[in-house]
């Protein structure tokens, strides 16, 4: 999995590409938790380039979300394709995360 991060307004946008499988979880954990611990408490996770996600990677998203929330921020999900949307619904994690169709919508929502 390839990971890129950038600043957009007050948000840290983390863009993922490829498969968020068990072998990618450590890198995802390092990036997301590192961002929160580095002071980026408003994070948009762009999943539009992700074709697969496993339960371990979902756990990383949850952990990062909780840490961001604990510091007064949030982690939003942007751009999941149909299979990922289905997983978020099946696990009911769409009740935990706010999910947006793209990064722009997520950043705009955080701005409000």
């Amino acid at each position: 999995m390839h990971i890129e991060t950038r600043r957009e307004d007050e948000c840290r946008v983390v863009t993922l590409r490829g498969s968020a499988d068990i072998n990618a979880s450590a890198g995802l954990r390092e990036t997301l938790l590192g961002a929160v611990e580095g002071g980026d408490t408003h994070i948009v996770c762009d999943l539009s380039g992700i074709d697969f996600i496993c339960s371990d990677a979902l756990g990383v998203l949850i952990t990062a979300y909780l840490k961001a929330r604990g510091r007064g921020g949030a982690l939003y999900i942007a751009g999941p394709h149909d299979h990922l949307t289905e997983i978020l619904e099946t696990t009911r994690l769409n009740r935990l995360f706010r999910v947006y169709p793209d990064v722009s919508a997520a950043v705009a929502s955080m701005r409000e």
Partner: protein
Amino acid sequence: MPVGPSQTDDLGAWTEKVLPTNLSAVRETEREVLGLLRDLQYDEDHLFAVRLALEEALVNAMKHGNGFDPNLSVYVWYRATPERVEIRVADEGRGFDPGGVPDPTADENLERPCGRGIMLMRCYMDEVTFSREGNEVSMVKHRQP
């Protein structure tokens, strides 16, 4: 070594793999199984479902079953026809009670970062059964629902 499935029925031969308890072996196993399904022209929804269930089963076997003990192995058997794919995954651990895993979709468990693997396997495969000891899982996905 766990006893594998019978080779004598008429649904085709099983392919057997013995994996080290090493997460790097997961991706290659998925590649093999999905390659077989692509050859049989399964669609992307089926490929996604089988990959997810297989990944969760393999990770459970290595992590919770074998406790990441490099001296233990994980056993995989799989076979597919144009109508169905069957996968079995066994570990050398002491087993567990799958009924004892809390429902990860319950409101009180939504913030738990783990415990979703078995639920995903059950949601994405048509049949999921565990051995009595809990250290072997059998999964079936039909081409037609």
